[in-house]
């Protein structure tokens, strides 16, 4: 199989150009799908018989949660690619992912907290999903902290890559242990079960997932361009691009 397409991604100027071309497409597709999903979720979908309109926060909460995990996985995979194939661009992509993932985790926690108020009357509950998200946030902080603490940029790339890989192996174990812990002490306080949802509620959710993923793609490409410019600031292609 011809792998040149893969190795082309290893070239910083190529990736820069690729990111520049594709960002508007990702961004506009994301915006469009978000508007459709919001209309479907906030206007078209009927209120939940139990939670009335409060359930609608799921349209931001659930995709944020999925994205926070998806981004960590993306971060770990690109970091592993950078480590194994020694691709600087892959390391740049991993570095670009981290803050985005952390923000999605924060969004999950905030929306979960806001949802908790009408649900349980309290702004925080040790529900398994929120608890796992909190631990995930600490994993993100650890990753970003390690990157910041190591002076040499190549060492920082490689060390944080190992951490990301160790983290992604641990995430399923952490989730399992948090679920175990939660089941010991109270019945599952899941915010919303999958079985409760009728198709008219589900399709805006799926659309929102897609919109968030495209949004992530757009933001990642923008951050990646900035990372590449910063890392390769001495190179001639950067001078050409900036002139």
């Amino acid at each position, binding site marked *: 199989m011809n792998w040149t397409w893969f190795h082309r991604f290893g070239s910083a100027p190529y990736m820069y150009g690729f990111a520049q071309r594709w960002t508007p497409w990702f961004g506009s597709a994301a915006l469009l799908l978000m508007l459709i999903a919001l209309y479907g979720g906030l206007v078209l979908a009927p209120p939940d018989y139990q939670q009335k309109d409060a359930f609608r926060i799921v349209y931001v909460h659930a995709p944020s949660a999925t994205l926070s995990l998806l981004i960590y996985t993306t971060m770990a995979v690109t970091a592993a690619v950078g480590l194994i194939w020694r691709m600087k661009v892959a390391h740049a992509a991993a570095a670009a992912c981290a803050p985005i993932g952390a923000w999605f985790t924060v969004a999950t926690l905030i929306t979960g907290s806001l949802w908790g108020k009408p649900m349980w009357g309290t702004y925080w509950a040790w529900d398994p999903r929120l608890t796992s998200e909190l631990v995930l946030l600490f994993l993100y902080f650890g990753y970003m*902290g*390690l990157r910041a603490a190591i002076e040499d940029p190549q*060492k920082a790339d490689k*060390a944080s890559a190992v951490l990301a890989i160790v983290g992604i192996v641990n995430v399923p174990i952490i989730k*399992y242990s948090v679920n175990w812990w939660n089941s010991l002490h109270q019945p599952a306080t899941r915010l919303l079960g999958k079985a409760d949802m009728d198709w008219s509620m589900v399709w805006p959710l799926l659309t929102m997932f897609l919109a968030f993923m495209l949004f992530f793609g757009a933001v990642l490409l923008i951050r990646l361009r900035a990372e590449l410019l910063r890392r390769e600031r001495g190179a001639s292609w950067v001078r050409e691009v900036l002139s």
Partner: protein
Amino acid sequence: MKTGALAAARLVAARDLSLAFRKPSQLLQPLMFFMIVATLFPLTLTPELSRLRDAAPGVLWIGALLSSLLALEFLFRDDAVDGTLEQFALSGQSLTWMLFAKTCTHWLLTGLPLALSAPLAALALGVPVAALGAMIAALALGSFGLSLVGAICAGLTLGARRGGVLLSLLTLPLSVPILVFGSDATRLAIVGADIAGPMYMLSAIAVLGVTLAPLAAAAAVRIGLE
């Protein structure tokens, strides 16, 4: 003619043990820390033993975790500073295996003594005598897992500034499963129930740790040596 892997591991362990016993105060400090932390909880919560008993699993395990975070400082630090770690990487022996030997020795010097001396704190927190055996077993197994996970993070923070706080920040989230299952085992032991379930989970984590953690730690150390 090269030294065999087992003989090399034995030498690594022997060296660490003989160094540790030349500075025994360094061994006692994490234990003292654990005792002090265990004392602080009644001081800040309540002197009633019946209520302390409910909090005991948490107190013991958090104390054990914090104590092992302190002890992790001296897993690789001295060797990194004087160049011994570099010699491991250049010895022709598997670095993974050498680091595994070091981690096991470290646990023998820190985690195991902690588990064996925990009854003192446990009794002071109202834990019934019948539960002590199970508690020691859980702490021993859990602290072994903590040493393995901690070795990875210790390797990663070798090249970092202010590594101590960062080491804790990295290790704490990764130690959540061990904390959950370990404290659950302790809680079950206190009420006299069967601890097999969480102990199996702790064992599974330990096995996973033994297979994967030294590899990750070796990768981290090599990166740190660059």
